[in-house]
């Protein structure tokens, strides 16, 4: 049986700062060195790792290929890489270094054909479309891009559907409201996405304890759960969370 994955996310700001963790995409707090973190996660036998160079767009620079390469050397598990990836050439370089999946967000909104270009060249399984969404005061979800800085008029479920049609192999949905709060996943938002598409959905934003993971699987059939704060600021590990998931009859790899 296919296991529900638990995926740590590494957010990288730049070589001087290293890894950061945000709260609602703001208030960046330094949380360590990306290479050491990758090494620890590899030794803990995690299911997968997502590395997002959020500094690339914020500081208008290229994704840091050197750090991606150094992280890759530590990983004998699947690695998803994102951060201002805009061309098929960027994708090619990252896959050559050793990335398995490419996460695109703002570039896909600005130029949706990029999704098809990557899918046609490297297969759908290689394209993760990452969607950051926020609830408006009226209760309507809207997609934000550029690291949560720019509001769009896209609705997350319709955008996910379009991305699927263009060739995306997976959707990574992050709740900006819940990011870093450790109050639990945004169940409604995730449910909107899992109902809209037939490709796997990775939920992110808000996980603070193992029950949140169980809830996101039971209530909205997420295929994978990504998280960062919980691993940086609590004692819970991917394995202790999966123990709890197994007790709730969710298939996991332990």
């Amino acid at each position, binding site marked *: 049986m296919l296991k529900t994955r638990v995926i740590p996310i590494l957010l990288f700001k730049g070589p001087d700062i290293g890894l950061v963790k945000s709260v609602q995409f703001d208030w960046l707090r330094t949380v360590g060195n990306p290479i050491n973190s990758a090494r620890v996660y590899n030794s803990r036998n995690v299911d997968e790792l997502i590395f997002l160079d959020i500094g690339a767009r914020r500081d208008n620079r290229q994704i840091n290929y050197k750090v991606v390469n150094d992280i890759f050397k530590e990983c004998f598990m*699947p690695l998803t890489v994102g951060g201002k990836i805009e061309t098929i050439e960027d994708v090619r370089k990252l896959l050559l270094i050793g990335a398995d999946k490419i996460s695109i967000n703002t570039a896909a909104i600005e130029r949706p054909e990029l999704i098809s270009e990557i899918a*046609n060249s490297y*297969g759908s399984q290689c394209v993760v479309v990452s969607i950051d969404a926020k609830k408006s005061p009226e209760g309507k979800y809207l997609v934000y891009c550029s690291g949560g800085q720019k509001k769009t008029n896209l609705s997350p479920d319709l955008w996910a559907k379009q991305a699927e049609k263009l060739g995306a192999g997976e959707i990574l949905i992050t709740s900006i409201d819940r990011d870093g709060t450790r109050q639990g996943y945004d169940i409604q938002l995730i449910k909107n996405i899992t109902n809209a598409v037939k490709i796997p959905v990775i939920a992110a934003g808000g996980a603070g304890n193992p029950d949140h993971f169980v809830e996101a699987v039971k209530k909205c059939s997420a295929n994978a759960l990504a998280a960062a704060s919980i691993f940086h600021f609590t004692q819970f590990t991917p394995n202790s969370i999966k123990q709890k998931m197994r007790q709730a009859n969710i298939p996991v790899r332990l």
Partner: protein
Amino acid sequence: MTVIIDYGLGNLASVAKAFKKAGSEIVISSDSNLISKADHLVLPGQGAFSDGINNIRKLKLDKILYQQVLKEKKPILGICLGMQLMANIGYENGECQGLGLIEGKTIKIKASAKIRLPHIGWDNVEIEKKSTIFSEIPNNSDFYFLHSYHLVPSDKSLIVATCDYGQKFVVSAQKGNIFATLFHPEKSHDFGIKLIKNFLEC
């Protein structure tokens, strides 16, 4: 020396790193001289069947492979798309001919409400028949998958392992010196490295 065959579509760095960890000297190449000098060959792969086979033919790698694998009986491991390309026929982006190293066809997994495609993640592998590459690997160990298509061998006696994702399909096959896995051993932590070590002993 192991040659990881470069036909422009594989996740070559991952495969190379895992083979190094398993103790092999590796070369990534499409050069026929190097391929003929190798002790072991790996046909990795990511991407679409049609692109894969077209690239292989363009580089004339099919002829070298037939010579080395069918005549010289050199051990080869096909991984993911590499396994799929071993079939006679594939149906991704239209029907096209494959390498025919393992008689059969490569078709898409049936999707449904609960069966989302691609099949991404860790799934348990049921060993159906003894094969060197699964030596000392417990039955139903989890391996990492990232695909939507699978090879259906015509000769059922070649089936080594299966997986159940909505339907049962073949995830490992062996025909003499030809080995194949639909999952990615290079991404599957310790059991993956063990499988590669086992292959290197063939």
